[in-house]
């Protein structure tokens, strides 16, 4: 990365006091602290990873922090996105993050980009920054950030999480591999875990995002041994760290000697997302939540199947429903009678659509999918059913 010279900056008396625990360490010292003050770091996303990342960078005295985020704080964010608090629900994440950063360190300049990062704006936003730290953790953005960093010659501090497991590395094509060297292609959407397998332990992004902050500070100050060329794997349940070697792929399409990607592409298309979202349910017989309520009130004989997971059933359920998780539907089909009227539901209607499809293939005809799932039931019939 571009060498940051410390000569033009200085620290005020207040700053010296604030950063004293850095200044008394020779590894940082005045020189390192001035490098931090002159550094410009772009955080993509102010969510689970972006929260600790931006908080620690701000506390450490990084002079300019850019944040790209267009989302609004909601209640489900608060379990892990510690840059936002309960009073921020409903506010833009950018406004909330900016306020928290200034509360922690008023010396930091925060630049907000309230926009979705795209192939059209990425190069323009990135060009003014020394380090890019990706906290968005979805595939299209990850490939976009990677390619933009390679094209601009900037380091990309990477973190990713899944349930109890995290990955972190620094991708910097000038000195080592890029993300595409590690994974040339993303998984097709059909093989990405669905919300039934989702969720994340709130502390995990705290640890991985803090690792990203640490690697960013190391890149800026030049101390220590960077994660370039290494992939850290963290298993929170076993409290185990493992380290794997990353090598530059000589055939890499973006950072190899003969790149075929020389400008940013359409990353949603690359990740196979567009146009597939709602295909399966469109042609299936559906029923609305009020219609289901009416049928139940009229005491029509009706079998209601819940295809969510047992731990979701414990959060909330529709009284009288029978739990058969989607993965068990094929095996437990014999528990159902094709002569009965059957309604299938899940959280929001997608998993149950798959179950309806499966049952129809096996000859079930008097079967309907509950449109919008138990969330619609909560919205339109019984608000006492909690949403999650």
């Amino acid at each position: 990365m571009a060498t940051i010279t410390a000569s033009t900056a200085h620290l005020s008396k207040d700053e010296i006091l604030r950063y004293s625990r850095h200044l008394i360490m020779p590894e940082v010292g005045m020189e390192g602290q001035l490098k931090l003050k002159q550094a410009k770091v772009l955080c993509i996303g102010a969510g689970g990873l972006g929260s600790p990342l931006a908080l620690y960078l701000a506390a450490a005295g990084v002079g300019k922090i850019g944040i790209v985020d267009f989302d609004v704080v909601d209640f489900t964010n608060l379990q892990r996105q510690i840059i936002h608090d309960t009073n921020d629900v409903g506010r833009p994440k950018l406004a909330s993050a900016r306020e928290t950063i200034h509360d922690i360190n008023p010396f930091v300049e925060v630049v907000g980009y309230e926009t979705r990062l795209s192939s059209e704006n990425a190069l323009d936003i990135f060009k003014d920054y020394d380090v890019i730290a990706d906290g968005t953790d979805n595939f299209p953005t990850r490939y976009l950030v990677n390619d933009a960093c390679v094209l601009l010659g900037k380091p990309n501090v990477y973190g990713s999480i899944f349930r109890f497991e995290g990955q972190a590395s620094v991708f910097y094509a000038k000195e080592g591999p890029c993300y595409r060297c590690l994974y040339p292609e993303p998984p097709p959407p059909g093989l990405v875990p669905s919300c039934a397998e989702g969720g994340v332990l709130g502390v995990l992004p705290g640890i991985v995002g803090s690792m990203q902050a640490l690697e960013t500070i190391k890149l800026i100050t030049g101390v220590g041994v960077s994660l370039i060329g290494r992939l850290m794997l963290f298993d929170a349940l076993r409290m185990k760290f493992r380290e794997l070697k990353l090598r530059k792929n000589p055939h890499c399409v973006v950072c190899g000697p003969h790149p075929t990607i020389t400008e940013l592409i359409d990353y949603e298309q690359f990740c196979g997302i567009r146009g597939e979202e709602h295909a399966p349910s469109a042609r299936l017989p559906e029923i609305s939540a009020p219609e289901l309520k009416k049928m139940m009130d009229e005491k029509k004989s009706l079998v209601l199947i819940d295809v969510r997971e047992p731990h979701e059933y414990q959060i909330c359920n529709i009284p009288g429903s029978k739990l058969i998780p989607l993965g068990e539907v094929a095996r437990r089909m014999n528990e159902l009678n094709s002569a009965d009227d059957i309604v299938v539901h899940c959280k929001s209607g997608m998993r149950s659509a798959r179950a309806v499809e499966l049952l129809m293939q096996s000859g079930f005809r008097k079967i309907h999918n509950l449109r919008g799932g138990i969330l619609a039931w909560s919205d339109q019939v019984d608000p006492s059913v909690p949403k999650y």
Partner: protein
Amino acid sequence: MPVTVLIPTPLRQYTGKKESVVVEAKNVAEALQQLTSEYPDLRRHLFTDDGKLRNFVNVYLGDEDIRFLQKDQTPLNDKDVLSIVPSIAGGADLYCICK
């Protein structure tokens, strides 16, 4: 010879929640073959229809990527540890069709 294969969190649902599986194999191809014949649901997550290891799944022998060893012909020794390391994305709301 017995070799341990470490299963990552997203794929444990296909191995009966097992975190590791011991197989008998002389090379990586044999090890993965054994693993997927024991747990058939795992197959489509590791291999394409024409049997190639998927581009978003890496296999490591110790800390070394088999793509930079002898790929699936990389020989295995007693008590070697293979890790399957897929790309993960926890903030995958964009991907999650059942949001």
